[in-house]
């Protein structure tokens, strides 16, 4: 047995270690399970689910940028019903906490999805995506409006007793205000950050490289931004934070935890090295041993900042 306690609590949600797989970067777990033993990671978050299946945006959906990538997938997903029928059975084979990420165009749809899913025993928590910048009719207004985020939290809270995480948009002036609204309305934690709005043009055709024009920037390019957002929330609001954005290795995980994260999610890295998340767990343990840290949770918000 290891001398280091790698388990972490995100409010009422207990994970065996802080390394989760981020929404939209592992589908529903099937493909990644060929590379990473899901039983070794902290939790898996599904691709954003909506009430009905979504086709997603036409191509091109992906553009590479310096140390990052833009995506405009358009929340392509199988819908809540097919998820329960076709995807949950596979995930039942694993002993890994399943977190359902939900995206919707209206508050009612968020509530409806949660109601349907909350009865599923396999689902251990909900992550509400209020911040996906790619869906034109919805998403963005929620993510950028403190009141709407508060309202979504309140309404979803009313229909589930499971841990409730709100995933925040970085594309706002003060992210802590959103975390504060989540806390006030009974949310258990926030995830920070979703992707940063970005765009790119082809200089010969003058067309946007993404069909959707704007996309979400992810990957190491945004890590400093994500660290600043996690720190901002951590210093201002007493709520657990899940750190996300550009994590490429175990060092980045530690950096997020120091800046205030209770756990982290691995996103874009899964595309580049689908074995990486699993491997990090052991490396985190080594760091803790080397630094004489008994419980990894001690790292959360352990920043040494002179005031």
């Amino acid at each position: 047995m290891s001398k280091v306690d790698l388990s972490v609590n995100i409010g009422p949600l207990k994970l065996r270690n802080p390394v989760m797989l981020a929404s939209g970067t592992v589908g529903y777990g099937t493909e990644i399970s060929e590379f990473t033993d899901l039983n070794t990671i902290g939790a898996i978050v599904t691709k954003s689910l909506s009430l009905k299946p979504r086709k997603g945006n036409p191509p091109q959906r992906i553009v590479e940028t310096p140390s990052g990538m833009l995506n405009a997938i358009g929340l392509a997903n199988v819908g809540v019903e097919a998820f329960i029928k076709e995807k949950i059975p596979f995930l039942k084979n694993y002993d890994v906490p399943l977190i359902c990420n939900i995206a919707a165009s209206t508050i009612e749809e968020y509530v409806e999805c949660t109601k349907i899913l909350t009865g599923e025993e396999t689902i251990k928590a909900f992550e509400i995506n209020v911040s996906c910048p790619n869906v034109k009719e919805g998403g963005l207004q929620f993510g950028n409006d403190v009141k709407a985020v508060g309202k979504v939290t309140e309404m979803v809270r009313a229909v589930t007793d499971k841990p409730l995480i709100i995933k925040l948009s970085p594309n706002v002036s003060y992210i802590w205000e959103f975390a504060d609204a989540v806390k006030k309305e009974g949310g258990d934690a926030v995830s920070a950050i979703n992707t940063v709005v970005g765009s790119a043009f082809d200089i010969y055709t003058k067309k946007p490289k993404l069909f959707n024009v704007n996309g979400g920037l992810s990957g190491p390019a945004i890590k400093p931004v994500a660290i600043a957002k996690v720190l901002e929330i951590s210093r201002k609001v007493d709520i657990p934070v899940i750190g996300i954005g550009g994590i490429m290795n175990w060092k980045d995980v530690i950096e997020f935890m120091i800046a205030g994260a209770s756990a982290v999610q691995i996103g874009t890295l899964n595309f580049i090295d689908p074995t990486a998340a699993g491997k990090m767990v052991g490396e985190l343990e080594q760091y803790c041993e080397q630094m004489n840290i008994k419980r990894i949770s001690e790292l959360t918000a352990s920043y040494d900042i002179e005031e």
Partner: protein
Amino acid sequence: MFVIKSPVTETKQLQENIFLQKIHCPEIASVIKAGQFLNVRVLESTYPLLRRPFSICDVEDDYIYLLFNVMGEGTIILSHKPEGALIDLLGPLGKGFNTEDDYELAVIAAGGLGAAPFPFLTKELKDKKEIKTFVGGRSKSDVITYGMINVSVATDDGSAGYKGTVVDLMRENLQELKSKKIKVFACGPTPMLRAVKEFCVENDFNCEVSTECAMACGFGICQGCPIESANEKDKYLLVCKDGPVFNIKDVML
């Protein structure tokens, strides 16, 4: 599927801008099929960040071959890999060509770098089927015939072979093609694939095309590579997982 670091054993410049790279990778060599691809991490760095997809060009014992042209940062780096350098491969990925159908003559149609998957396909087919290959390019220097047999060449500018597109050339040979039970295997730029599709639909030829799309993951987790399904309305297939080889009946090009 493997994520594996394997040594480059040779990088040969076939033509201006076009490279053939030999890699020692028994794990992948022993299982990969023609039409499948690998997603290659060219550097352990954050730039380029994403892997680059390449068709499997050929397999020889424990060795695999990639055929690529230098497009941008990723392929420049790849082309400079010295002997012995490790490159990080993810694969085999996607569905390959279905060679098992009922046909006598395999008709291969390649446009430019679309030649990449065909040396291996030729090897897989040559003891089982007759093969006729049509290779096109803008100009002589774009025509790649490496590893292919029974080749007719077309160039847009007439600098080699027939003057016209590869599909024009196939049309010229229509009688011969119609004389046998054939299956067409095509790979090349999308406009060419559209022309191939039209030609095959007209003549009721069975045809598989290898498609391309910007990709992030290459194995179905990012949803980055949609291609419209021809069978189900309002549904996308994934180029990386459901393809890259599709029967022309199944996708909108």
